[in-house]
């Protein structure tokens, strides 16, 4: 069995992790961290619910087998070590011996097996554990995940909020596919993470307190975490400025970010979102009318000025993204067609595609948007495409479900969209380009895009355990999708973490606050 990562390697990584400055000062124990959630929480159990709002409390209440540092290196967490078999067909997790749930019951390998089944049957990210055929539990502290095919994405899927270990003795009293509605998801939660639930009042707050029986010696450093639910970005900004809250994540409004950057005593950073991988792009329905012609899609790309969007609309808070993989991901390749603003080229491509100007207009398309925050981008696209003779009608949706339905049924021409990578490309990237995933709801392959080579590359990369070979496969994949423009990739969604000077070890690894904050502490 090939030792993929072992204790020693993990310890060395931890040293590097520390040396890299993530742990900058000597942590101190105690204190109450006041932090914010940007919207109401539907479910605290991250084993059955996706999303960044669930991820924050979820990752504190429940531990996962692994955690990642800011250089995408797996670290021991609930699993003190792990092995990937040489053929890549099984992953053995060696659990820490002293781990207990918040009710004092030991965390065992059967809880790991149970959690995998719950996630497979309830979590929307089916690709995370689809190749896991079963979980063998030879002893209480060894779980062997048996795979139907090599599945390197499993490593990232076992971290952050994606693989919460939940107690079988609590959630096993209902059929496995009903855990999503289990009453203990939001009250009397018995978790495995560094903090236990004190109180959850939706619309108001989630209050957590230190779990003294946490399996990591001396952790967590904080005594209590108060997550205030403040849905208005301006109100959150005031709370940060007034010192009412110490920390918050996923702030994405440019004017709020820039305002907070000027505030004394606050730190504002875009670091820590590579795992979440949020991307803004222009989705193109490749099956309809002129947009089915790749030359038209390229012309659209050449007519849109990314720099304008990043500077004028995003006010310098976002960075360029050229492909469907987030620039912070180790799989990102910038060596693709970048589509510089070139109206002459755009016009030439449209002429070549057989859409000459009839007066000022060549043809008309619609553009959709799902939430008001991206209306400026949509208005910009309308104005930009008019310059090359494409008349754009903006379609407002009554609400998010209306837009989602339009997208899911491919009832659109163009749409502004935001999609997350969720760690490994298998989890959040393939869904957009996979020809077997066309029109399977919002955030599937809503573009109707189909390319046999792209499918093949994704299939090969999904089972390739060699990191360098995977990168090469994804580099070719990115070059093709950039060339064929089923989606015009524009910029990263500018998620930022805001934290006061009083905070030590802010969560700026790859999962931001969708990871345990057991190392966060309050400075004296």
């Amino acid at each position, binding site marked *: 069995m090939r030792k993929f990562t072992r204790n020693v390697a993990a310890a060395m990584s931890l040293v590097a992790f520390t040396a890299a400055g993530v742990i900058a000062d000597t942590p101190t124990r105690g204190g109450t961290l006041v932090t914010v959630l940007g919207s109401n929480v539907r479910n605290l159990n991250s084993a059955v619910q996706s999303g960044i709002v669930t991820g924050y409390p979820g990752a504190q209440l429940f531990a996962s087998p692994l955690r990642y540092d800011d250089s995408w290196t797996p670290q021991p967490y609930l699993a003190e070590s792990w092995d990937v078999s040489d053929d890549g067909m099984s992953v053995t997790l060696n659990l820490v011996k002293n781990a207990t749930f918040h009710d004092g019951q030991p965390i065992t390998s059967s809880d790991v097996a149970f959690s995998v089944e719950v996630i497979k049957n309830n979590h929307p990210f089916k690709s995370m554990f689809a190749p896991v055929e079963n979980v063998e539990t030879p002893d209480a502290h060894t779980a062997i995940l048996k795979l139907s095919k090599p599945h390197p994405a499993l490593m990232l899927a076992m971290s952050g909020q994606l693989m919460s270990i939940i107690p079988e003795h609590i959630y096993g009293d209902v059929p496995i596919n009903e855990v999503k509605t289990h009453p203990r998801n939001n009250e009397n939660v018995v978790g495995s993470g560094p903090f236990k639930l004190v109180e959850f009042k939706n619309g108001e707050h989630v209050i957590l307190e230190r779990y003294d029986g946490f399996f990591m010696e001396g952790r967590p450093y904080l005594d209590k975490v108060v997550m205030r639910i403040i849905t208005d970005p301006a109100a959150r900004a005031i709370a940060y400025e007034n010192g009412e809250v110490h920390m918050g994540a996923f702030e994405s409004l440019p004017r709020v970010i820039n305002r907070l950057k000027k505030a004394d005593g606050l730190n504002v950073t875009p670091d820590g979102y590579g795992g979440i991988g949020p991307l803004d792009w222009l989705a193109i329905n490749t099956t309809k009318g002129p947009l089915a012609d790749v030359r038209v899609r390229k012309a659209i790309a050449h007519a849109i000025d990314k720099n304008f969007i990043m500077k004028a609309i995003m006010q310098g808070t976002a960075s360029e993204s050229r492909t469907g993989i987030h620039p912070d991901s180790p799989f990102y390749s910038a060596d693709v067609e970048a589509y510089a603003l070139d109206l002459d080229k755009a016009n030439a491509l449209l002429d070549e595609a057989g859409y000459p100007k009839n007066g000022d207009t060549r043809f008309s398309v619609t553009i959709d948007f799902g939430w008001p925050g991206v209306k400026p981008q949509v208005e910009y696209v309308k104005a930009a495409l008019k310059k090359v003779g494409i008349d754009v009608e903006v379609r*407002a949706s009554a609400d998010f479900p209306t837009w989602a339905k339009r997208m899911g049924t491919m009832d659109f021409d163009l749409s502004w969209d935001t999609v997350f990578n969720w760690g490994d490309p298998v989890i959040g990237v393939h869904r957009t380009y996979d020809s077997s995933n066309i029109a399977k709801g919002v955030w599937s392959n809503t573009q109707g895009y189909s390319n046999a080579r792209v499918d093949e590359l994704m299939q090969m990369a999904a089972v390739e355990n060699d990191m360098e070979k995977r990168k090469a496969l994804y580099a070719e994949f990115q070059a093709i999708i950039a060339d064929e423009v089923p989606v015009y990739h524009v910029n990263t969604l500018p998620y930022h973490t805001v934290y006061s000077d009083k905070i030590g070890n802010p969560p700026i690894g790859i999962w931001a606050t969708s990871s345990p904050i057991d190392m966060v502490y309050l400075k004296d």
Partner: protein
Amino acid sequence: MMDRKTENSEYLEQASSPSAEAWEMFKRNHAAMAGLVILFVITIGSIFGPLIYPTDPFDMVWAPFSPPGEEGYLFGTDYLGRDLLAMVIHGARVSLVIGLSAAIVSIFIGVTIGALAGFYRGYIEEILMRVTEFFQVLPTLLFSMVIVALFGASLTMITIAIGIVSWTAVARITRSEFLRIRELEYVMASRASGVSNTKLMFGIILPNALPPIIVQSALMVGSAILFEAGLSFLGLTDPNVVSWGQIIGSNRQYILDASYTVTIPGIAIFVTVLAISLVGDGLNDALNPKLRAR
């Protein structure tokens, strides 16, 4: 001695018609005349402005947030570099059209319901007045937001939404006028001579009930413009047209960086609604027989 025919003609020449009298009264009201002139200028500007200043309001003509006057752009540019002057001129057309159309919808609904209630009385009045009260107590902005959200933010739907939530005052005024006029002798005489109910309602009573309805209608145009601006500000607008409210709504997040992008269309709304209000007050004075007699 003057014959009887000549005497009558001279008398008729000297006597002014009620409308002429009202116009004389209106002219003497300086504030109302000022409002009328302003409204005339705005209306002419909205009709011919786009021809004189043909810049497309959706074109990005210059750098974003160029202050007024810079590079020849009188009102400056917005967050996408669009010409604010072009947007305000084109927006006038949309704001006025919505204001007028919504007022027409309101008047049509209000007059119909008020006339039926006031004329027939009895259980018809009871039902129609309860319906009116129901709409009167609805939170109008919220209700119109729901209508626009459900059926889409097209200009037609916005107009209908405003019309649907704004007709109750017209209905109540119309009903009270009908209740008063239906008991007058000439109406009784017409009824006795066999005139049909429809002709009585719309041919005899309604023309005499018009003055307060006209005043209310004029004010309603102003409130409809404000209503549209409110909906646009909240994002409930047709994104393919420019209105003053939509300009404010789109630029509101930049109010601290470029306040003129919000102030200029705000002033346009203010001046227009003020002008309409002054005209409405003038009409109220001119068409009110009691005031006219003073």
